[in-house]
């Protein structure tokens, strides 16, 4: 027989109102727990997306290179015979990704891929007057490269442009060499066959977010790098940027199965960062779990006491015709109400904490550290979980109340 639980709601709310101080304390307790969970979630997700944005902002999600040169054994082993070998690994030459011009449109056609940028990169020197600095030379097509790392947004002076004979350099390198936008510098590369030099004009200075990168980066047109690094018509790597950074590993594995190249996702390149993020996520989950457990225990202990206090009233209700189910639901509703009210209050508290964080916590440069916000989906999820925990916490006390023997309860 399904009837509107008007009785349960009414009695549950009245019981809660009657236990004023007790109810208030537990709601505040739940609110504190919910606030901690929501705040930690927002903080960690803000921190992680900030770290990711900083890390991935200057690098590709997937990099595709020519396979490494391997030493192949001269003779096949004879079956059953033991063999002792000592192989000197080969020095890796700079090699082009075979057939890369055909590969670019193919990769661009993949639904997960947002952009593909060919690059020739190698080591060199930047010279100006007496100064010389070791550099990482990168030859790119500016528009394509911009799509991968958002280079134009990292320009701090000048205008990003890569016509023949032009270059974009890192901020620290420019300072070390004493060049400003519009100045010229000489780029030199060398190999056993001799050195190659080229003179370029600086069109823009960029800040890639990492000082070490800023001290070494010189970006030139693809063609210029091809001739400087003796790789005419070649590309030493293809950089891919994806619509969703988290599919990088899967996609990299898939591509590895299809093409004979060396394909790495950003997760493999930044294995330490990924494990740090994972450790952080796990710690967050543990904290959330422990706080939830504390919330559940708090609600349960208050309701257990309430069942004892209300024993006689429960007995009267049963004598008046309340079913065991109704008594059970009276206490489950109390758990749900405490959980829901505590959640609402806790979310408000979390929003306040986040506001305090974004307005008052500053980095050494006086700017906010990073932005954190409570996503509505997270807020809803936390609130639902906390309310569900309220009901869960009420199960044991409610069962106890429902199991009370009415004749005994009335005599209490």
């Amino acid at each position: 027989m399904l009837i509107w639980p008007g009785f349960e709601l009414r009695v549950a709310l009245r019981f809660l109102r009657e236990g004023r101080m007790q109810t208030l304390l537990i709601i505040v307790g739940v609110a504190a727990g919910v606030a901690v969970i929501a705040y930690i979630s927002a903080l960690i997700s803000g921190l992680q997306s900030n770290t990711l944005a900083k890390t991935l902002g200057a690098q590709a999600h997937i990099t595709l290179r020519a396979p490494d040169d391997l030493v192949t054994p001269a003779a096949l082993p004879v079956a059953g015979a033991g063999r002792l070998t000592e192989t000197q690994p080969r020095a890796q030459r700079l090699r082009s990704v075979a057939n890369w011009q055909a590969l670019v449109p193919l990769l661009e056609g993949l639904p997960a891929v947002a952009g593909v940028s060919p690059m020739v990169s190698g080591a060199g020197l930047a010279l100006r007057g007496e100064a010389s600095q070791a550099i990482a030379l990168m030859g790119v097509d500016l528009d394509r490269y911009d799509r991968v790392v958002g280079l134009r947004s990292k320009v701090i002076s000048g205008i990003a442009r890569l016509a023949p004979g032009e270059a974009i350099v890192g901020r620290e390198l420019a300072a070390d060499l004493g060049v400003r936008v519009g100045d010229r510098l000489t780029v030199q590369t060398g190999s056993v066959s001799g050195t190659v030099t080229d003179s370029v004009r600086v069109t823009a200075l960029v800040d890639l977010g990492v000082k070490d990168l800023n001290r070494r980066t010189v970006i030139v047109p693809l063609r210029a790098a091809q001739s400087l690094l003796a790789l005419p018509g070649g590309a030493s790597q293809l950089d891919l940027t994806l619509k969703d950074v988290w599919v990088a590993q899967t996609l990299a594995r898939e591509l590895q199965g299809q093409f004979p190249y060396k394909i790495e996702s950003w997760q493999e390149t930044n294995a330490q960062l990924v494990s740090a993020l994972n450790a952080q996520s796990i710690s967050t989950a543990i904290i959330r779990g422990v706080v939830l457990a504390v919330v559940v225990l708090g609600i349960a202990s208050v309701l257990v006491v309430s069942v004892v206090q209300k024993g006689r009233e429960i007995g009267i209700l049963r004598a008046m015709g309340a079913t065991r189910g109704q008594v059970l639901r009276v206490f489950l509703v109390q758990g749900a109400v405490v959980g829901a009210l505590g959640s609402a209050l806790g979310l408000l508290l979390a929003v306040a904490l986040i506001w305090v964080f974004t307005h008052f916590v500053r980095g050494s440069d006086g700017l906010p550290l990073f932005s954190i916000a409570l996503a509505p989906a997270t807020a809803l999820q936390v609130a639902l979980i906390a309310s569900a925990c309220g009901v869960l916490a009420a199960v044991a006390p409610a069962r106890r109340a429902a199991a009370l023997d009415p004749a005994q309860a009335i005599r209490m």
Partner: protein
Amino acid sequence: MTSAPQELIALDAVRKSYNQGKPSEAEVLHGISLQVRRGEFIALMGPSGSGKSTLLNILGLLERMTSGSYRLDGEVVQGLDDAALTLCRRRTLGFVFQFHHLLPAFSALENVTLPALMAEGRVSAVQRERARSLLAAVGLAQAMDKRPGELSGGMQQRVAIARALVMDPPLVLADEPTGNLDTASSAEVFALLRRIHAERGTSFVVVTHDPRLAARCDRLVELIDGRIARDEAIAAGVEPAPGALAV
């Protein structure tokens, strides 16, 4: 009422033991047989420990008997499960306890409408009106919105009586309804029960220690050591005129 059987309660050889199967097992009711017809007003008397409360709890379906049979309002109740017993209790019985036992968080009117709320999940206008008129009938027209804590003992007991009657049960069980009241309130409450009996034909089984009150019932059942020692009609229930009721 004409179609309903005249017999309301039929107990046959009812026994009740506590701590069954343990060394401390004790039988408190030794084969009670009792018939109550509709409209009877019965006093249940006996010294402490004679089993009155146990018998009342069994009649009220709050405790299960160990053996014997019980037919309440035509329905065999031994063997029913808890849910069925609860529904049967809801339909057939009203309770009035010694210590009023109102819910302190609810007003007098809300206490009286609780049985309707628990039966249907809401209180209809008709039921609310009925609760109001019952409270008015027990002399509490001015105190409907007061909490039990704001009412005197006698007033609380009258609220409890109104609550017992709100679903119009054929039987009201009262466990020393005046035991906790002073003599004046006690007489008032008892007179109220008699008046309701006279007006509505509701049957009453009233546990009491007070021989003067018992003398105003229609039938006296006396329990001693778990056995019925006396079961007799009382010649003339002394009923005060309705005007004597301070309502």
